């Protein structure tokens, strides 16, 4: 709600080393992951991370129009990151902003190394990301969620992709920055990795970081990704159990009907 007056915090970190939302420096926000929540999509996932609420759908591999866009030797991965008009304090126009276009690109490039695109030549795999509410770190939460949606769509992957942003806030290097820390902190470094392969698929940075600060932040990001990876695995496991149960139930129903 835009009209609730938010005081700009005097300090982003208390004397006790607590952050605006009560977290410690190396603590993630509460994360809720759900896989397979949409009916029409080939795969889908939903993430809540702090107050972020993001839905991801995957369609494909599927035919592609116009045809001349198709690649002869692999699937074309397309990615659309969009923010709902009401996801932020000031209404966002539905037309894609330059920020959304850049983020769509870096998210695609963060996911692409993990997918066996070469198995589906001439097709398209489409990842649609809808940010319903934004609270800092949306690109990383989108990547985390998109990796699950791709898995849910049954698309073969080398590895998952796990992502989190670290920040420089009141001089401290902290994990998983929220909206306030993003706006009033001194730096932001979104990072994504393939957790089993330990390879970096996204790294961006703004702010002013000494080389030492960068290294400290980057290592913290890699640790955060590890934690996120465990949550992703649990969410996938939960989904597989659901599917199994549903299949069993449907088989029962079919038996009844015959």
């Amino acid at each position, binding site marked *: *709600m835009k009209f609730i007056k938010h005081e700009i915090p005097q300090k982003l970190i208390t004397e006790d080393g607590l952050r605006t939302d009560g977290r410690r420096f190396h603590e993630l926000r509460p994360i809720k992951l759900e896989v397979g929540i949409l009916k029409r999509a080939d795969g889908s996932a939903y993430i809540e991370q702090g107050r972020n609420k993001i839905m*991801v759908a995957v369609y494909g591999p599927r035919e592609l129009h116009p045809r001349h866009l198709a690649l002869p030797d692999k699937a074309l991965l397309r990615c659309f990151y969009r923010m709902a008009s009401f996801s932020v304090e000031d209404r966002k126009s539905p037309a894609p902003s330059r920020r959304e276009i850049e983020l769509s690109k870096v998210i695609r490039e963060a996911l692409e190394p993990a997918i066996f695109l070469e198995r589906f030549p001439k097709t398209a795999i489409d990842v649609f990301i809808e940010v319903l509410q934004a609270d800092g770190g949306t690109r990383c939460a989108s990547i985390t969620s998109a990796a699950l949606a791709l898995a849910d769509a049954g698309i073969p992957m080398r590895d998952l992709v796990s992502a989190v942003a670290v920040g420089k806030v009141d001089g401290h290097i902290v994990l998983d920055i929220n909206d306030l820390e993003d706006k009033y902190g001194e730096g932001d470094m979104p990072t994504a990795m393939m957790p089993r392969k330990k390879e970096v698929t996204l790294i961006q940075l703004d702010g002013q970081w000494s080389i030492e600060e960068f290294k400290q932040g980057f290592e913290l990001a890699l640790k955060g990704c590890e934690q996120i990876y465990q949550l992703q695995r649990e969410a996938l496991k939960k989904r597989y159990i659901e599917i199994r149960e549903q299949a069993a139930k449907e088989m029962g129903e079919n038996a009844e009907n015959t």
Partner: protein
Amino acid sequence: MQKIHKIASEIEKDSIISLAEKGKRLDGRGLEDFREVTIEAGVIEKAEGSAYVTLGDTKIMAGVKLEIGEPFPDTPDKGVFTVNAEFVPLASPVFEPGPPDEDAIELARVIDRGIRESEAIDLEKLCIIPGEKVWIAFIDIYILDHAGNLFDASTLGSITALLNTKMPEVKVENGEVKILDKLVSFPIRKIPVSVTFAKINDKLVVDPCIEEEHVMNARLTITMDENDNIVAMQKGGAGTLKTEDIYKAIEIAKVKTKELREKIPRGVSNG
């Protein structure tokens, strides 16, 4: 893959039609039954109002954002609202990224008409300085999963989001608008609700699912206020309706709009 899909849908088509002839439907509903409806208000804290609606597998999110802006020259003492529908490609294999197409525009305009013609919003109460400053409400509907009957889900979502909307009190000092801390409810005085029908061969079915929409000849949406006034009507589709279809639909809508209206969570009124 598309070819298989096509054949499947030909078989499905025959099955939907022959079921309808027998008064039955794919998912076991009666011809005049709605799917399960859930309506959750206030799910997006950053919006001034919001609602998440599921209608069977159909899922939509409606959000309201407020701004202070100028009134239209011909209604200087009234606030302004607009309805916009986004068919985001998340929701369906046939939706594409880009500006609203004719389906999204039709949906938004029919929702708009229901709200506007029922005079659901007390627009005079949105006026701050006549001719200069009024509240502008943006009602944005995001289709998240398209499993049929976007009209009724979107009408429910929009009016629930409006009922749930909070706006700050304002004070005018020396021609300047000052926003106060106190929040009040958005001025809603009517609750329009729509019921949508699909004509399948010569049967009318209520709340069509996506498979039924694929085979229907024509669509009819009827929006009513709580006094059984018809405030919007829209025929869609490449087929026709008979006079008796329309009359029958109105009688059903009279009953169903009341039932749906009961399901809407009410915001705490601003006393």
